[in-house]
């Protein structure tokens, strides 16, 4: 099977049904045959990671309620806390763009607009995640 025109004429049936469409044309736009489950899996893996990270973060925020900036900066700068914050940030913004992508795919029917929304969201998530990560790293390497 190549990319040539596929003419279907089953044996023993009238030969008037002719699909003037190439095999390539039929599959184009439906995504890769092998990476189709990647998005689904990544959404679940990030969700699993976020379960303990969220619990830790909520407890940590509660423990530092009303604290001044130097206290928060020192807390966030400790290696374990910084690592957990980086993991939280990475998982949150990864999960966020994966989730929003599904929302767009369900409701935005114009493909150019949908793709634009997905790309813009990926860009915003990447930048917000990087900003938050740089902030955590700055606190982690700062002298206290």
């Amino acid at each position, binding site marked *: 099977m190549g990319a040539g025109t596929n003419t279907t004429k089953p044996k023993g049936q009238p030969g008037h049904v002719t699909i003037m469409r190439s095999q390539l044309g039929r599959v184009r736009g439906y995504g890769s045959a092998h990476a189709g489950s990647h998005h689904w899996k990544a959404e679940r893996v990030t969700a699993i990671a976020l379960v303990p990270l969220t619990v830790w973060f909520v407890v940590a925020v509660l423990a530092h*309620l009303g604290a*001044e900036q130097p206290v928060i900066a020192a807390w966030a700068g400790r290696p374990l806390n910084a690592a957990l914050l980086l993991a939280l940030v990475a998982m*949150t913004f990864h999960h966020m763009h994966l989730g929003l992508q599904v929302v767009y795919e369900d409701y935005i029917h114009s493909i150019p607009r949908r793709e634009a929304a997905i790309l813009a969201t990926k860009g915003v998530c990447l930048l917000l995640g990087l900003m938050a990560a740089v902030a955590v790293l700055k606190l982690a390497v700062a002298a206290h």
Partner: protein
Amino acid sequence: MNDIRDALLVARNTEAKLVRRPVSPHIGIYRWPITMFASIMNRATGIALSVGSLLLAWWLVAAASGPVAFATVQGFIASPLGLVLLLGWTASLFYHFFGGIRHLVWDAGHGLAKSSLNPWTWVVLGATALSTLAVWVAGYLSLVAG
């Protein structure tokens, strides 16, 4: 018809006129089961949390920028608008958290029996309400004590 799938959505009515079939569930006349509410809430809270993630990024960047920037974000959170948003985000976080765990259990192939769907929806809603209340009461008490 723009989409080949639209062909499945049209039919002839009793007067032989071509009409669009109602989409199921026809939400205009449908009595919402609690599971439908649970499903749309998971998506709605996910969208709310996406907006809330701006606060997470802002809070971390402010903490790394210095006392003035940090005081600004703390002042915003303590403002009436900030508190309302924070309450909404707390509830959204817990709903998405418990609803998300439920989705993971479903993905593992468990808990899909029809009889368990309504009770577990109420468990998720109850856990959300209790956790939100617990966190806000604990926060209020720690601020009053501190």
